[in-house]
């Protein structure tokens, strides 16, 4: 890592930031999310806090600019220079500008805003470019996956040289031989608790998987004995925790796992490539994450549940069907409220909403049975 000449740094630990101008290629919410995650990458490694403001001056003013925008560093249109930021200081100090001519995205296509924002905020906090190709502060663009992102070692050393480490809060750099604290073992939620709910449920081969926080349960469709929870990190390291939705397409032997605006494809427990953006499925731009998904084997269609609406995706044509979204309540009588998870077993759809699991009979077009969600894992 390298610092700027004179090692400029902020003399305070709590900094304000404000997005002054947005880009048309992303919604305000998406820009805000990417900026927030970009700043969090640094506050996770150093005693820094960032407070969002919506008016007046802030330490870090963020804007999307075109061409020559008055700071003697004109942008150059698509590609080339993507963004720049100024070292800590008054006025322009800390300010971060993105080239509005770029295709900013939340996924892997175009230029991922989180990736570039996290890099530029390194400059805004006092880091210059690093010659370490694995560093976030390396000058050329390389996609970084926002979820579960951790600063590479080189950048941690750099930011801690300026602000100390978050654990000690002192300027002294962290002594590398300190044992790295292992993440605490996941607390096991009480699946018999009356308020217990799942994050996601899916078939995978001959098994059913139930996800909750950092854990998941796997069981045969015929429940023989009580099942023990496993750590998601142990089997699905890329997923880490808090899966939003999951489903399997058995005749293709692939499964999909959703988290925020991204999804992963697996063959069994084997990941097939890096995460992609859910925009691949053809959701409208305002859909940033999905609540639940269920694959209907005979129809070869997948239903996606978002809020109080649902979409239908044709797995053969790999296309979202027209005339969607539709209201969940209108189409599935007896199912109301947010859907946490859904799965098709033996031709019935099981909807998990909060502590209840509803067995829905499509022929009768009605709920025919209701149980506690936790009963699926032996409660």
């Amino acid at each position, binding site marked *: 890592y*390298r610092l700027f000449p004179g090692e400029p740094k902020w003399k305070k630990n709590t900094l304000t930031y404000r997005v002054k101008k947005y880009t048309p290629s992303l919604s305000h919410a998406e820009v805000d999310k990417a900026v927030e995650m970009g700043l969090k990458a640094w506050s996770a490694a150093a005693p820094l806090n960032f407070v969002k403001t919506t008016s007046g001056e802030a330490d870090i003013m963020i804007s999307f600019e075109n061409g020559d925008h008055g700071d003697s560093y004109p*942008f150059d249109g698509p*590609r080339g220079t993507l963004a*720049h930021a100024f070292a800590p200081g008054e006025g322009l100090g800390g300010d971060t500008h993105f080239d509005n001519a770029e295709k900013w995205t939340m996924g892997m296509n175009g230029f991922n805003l989180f990736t*570039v924002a996290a890099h530029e905020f390194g400059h805004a906090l006092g880091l*210059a470019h690093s010659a370490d190709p694995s560093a976030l502060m390396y*000058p050329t663009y390389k996609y970084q996956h926002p979820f579960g992102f951790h600063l590479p070692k080189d950048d941690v050393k750099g930011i801690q040289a300026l602000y100390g480490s978050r654990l000690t809060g002192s300027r002294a750099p962290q002594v590398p031989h300190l044992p790295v604290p292992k993440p605490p073992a996941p607390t096991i939620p009480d699946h018999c608790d009356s308020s217990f709910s799942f994050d996601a449920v899916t078939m995978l081969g001959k098994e059913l998987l139930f996800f909750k926080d950092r854990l998941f349960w796997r069981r045969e469709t015929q429940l023989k004995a009580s099942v023990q929870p496993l750590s998601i990190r142990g089997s699905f390291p890329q997923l880490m925790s808090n899966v939003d939705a999951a489903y399997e397409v058995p005749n293709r032997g692939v499964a999909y796992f959703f988290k925020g605006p991204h999804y992963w494809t697996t063959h069994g427990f084997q990941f097939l490539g890096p995460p992609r953006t859910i925009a691949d499925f053809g959701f409208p731009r305002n859909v940033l994450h999905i609540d639940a998904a269920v694959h209907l084997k005979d129809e070869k269609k997948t239903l996606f549940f978002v809020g109080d609406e649902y979409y239908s995706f044709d797995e053969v044509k790999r296309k979202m069907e027209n005339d969607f979204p539709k209201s969940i309540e209108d189409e599935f009588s007896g199912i109301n409220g947010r859907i946490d998870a859904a799965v098709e077993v033996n031709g019935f759809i099981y909807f998990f909403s909060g502590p209840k699991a509803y067995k829905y009979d499509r022929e009768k077009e009605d709920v025919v049975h209701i149980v506690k969600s936790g009963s699926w894992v032996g409660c």
Partner: protein
Amino acid sequence: APALFALSQTSSWRDFYTAQEYLDKYYTPQEGHHVGEITSGDSMTKKVQQMQAFFGLRVTGKLDYSTMDVIKRPRCGVPDIAN
């Protein structure tokens, strides 16, 4: 003419100007150059070497293929040599 040393057999004049713009932007201390000052050719070669050293490329001073490949990648607008 001395600047031609930086031009390797395989690069084109377009590459040369692209590289020159890149090096002016990212490897020229701002206070070092004023409008109208003529840069000596060997300073171009020196900058190429600086950039190759920074990116861990073979330091040849020439705009060879791997150097041009890095020059053409999308990147951050902050100069690599701090000023």
